[in-house]
């Protein structure tokens, strides 16, 4: 698991419109620049917002990636709930160290 780099990719996408253009044009080239596991890569590509949440991506980053991938707000919230149902509690990051998952 390389949560740091998943979040770093999303952080960079949020800050850099040129990176967004590159990401949309050729996602694989951008993804190759980050140290990511196969599970993380699949979750980013699909995108599997629920799995990204369970992997530990902070919602303050994830909501923007979801918006970039054209999720409406309610669909974003539901995707995280679905992720918890399918994959279990949050595995890493802020939400796991302080209790994890839905309260």
């Amino acid at each position, binding site marked *: 698991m390389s949560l740091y780099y998943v979040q770093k990719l999303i952080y960079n996408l949020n800050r850099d419109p040129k990176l967004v253009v590159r990401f949309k044009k050729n996602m694989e080239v951008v993804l190759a620049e980050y140290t990511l596991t196969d599970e993380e890569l699949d979750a980013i590509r699909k995108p599997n917002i629920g799995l990204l949440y369970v992997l530990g991506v902070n919602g*303050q980053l994830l909501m923007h990636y979801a918006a970039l991938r054209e999720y409406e707000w309610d669909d974003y919230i539901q995707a995280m709930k679905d992720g918890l149902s399918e994959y279990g509690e949050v595995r890493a990051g802020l939400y796991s160290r302080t209790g994890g998952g839905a309260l």
Partner: protein
Amino acid sequence: MSLVFAGVCSHAPGITGRAERADNTIREELHANYDKMRQAIEDAGAEALVVVAAEHFANFFMDNMPAFCMGMADFYEGPIEDEEWLKIKRRRVPGNAGLSERLIKKIMQDVDVAYAQEWKFDHGIMVPLHFLTPRYDLDIVPVNINCQGPPLTPLHRAWAFGKALRLACDAASERIAIVGTGGISHWPATPDSGKINEEWDREFLDRFIANDREALISYSDEETYRDGGQGGFEIRTFISIAAACEGCKGELWYYAPIPIYAVGCTVAVISLH
């Protein structure tokens, strides 16, 4: 004394981005209180506004996360988020590098603060500015306290920063307003988005209004997460404002839990007299 106004308010992106999804009456009351704060800042003759915020990985990330950072530029830009998502148009926001430098040099005598000559404001600053300086004609000095990426800034250090900020403001020739923006309880951008612990919020606000240092800094992060969610970590911004006004009492202008905005929306001030 050059500190002329002190207050706190909420900054959730839903306040502008999902504005229409709240009840009309509630939304109008919230907007009226933001506008009351805008008027109070203008009436105080403020020449600059220090916004003590809790940004959300727009400029600061775990590759180099400062406990405190202040902007030191003649202009900033924001919002970093999609304009349509936040419903705030991207623009250049005026700063004052000279004032920032003087404040930072003074604060550094007491608290180690990083500085930044570039800063892309996220909703944590842009939502308050949307209401408080709608003409974007007031110099902004942004401050960030790490409320997002653990290890978080300790509460007693947020208090120390607020005291140092006050000393710095008092040493400046400009008339300065300070506004803290954050929490109180909320679980933003998570499956629990919309959950609000009104009882916890009101207890915190009682401590803020009383300006009770010991009570304000007594929360552990574990308690805050349990009762106030990860958004509750942003109480650091309110605490720094209370510290800047140590000895003075607050006044709650508005509080209402608004689930679609994912936060208990708050507008409060501290009397400087």
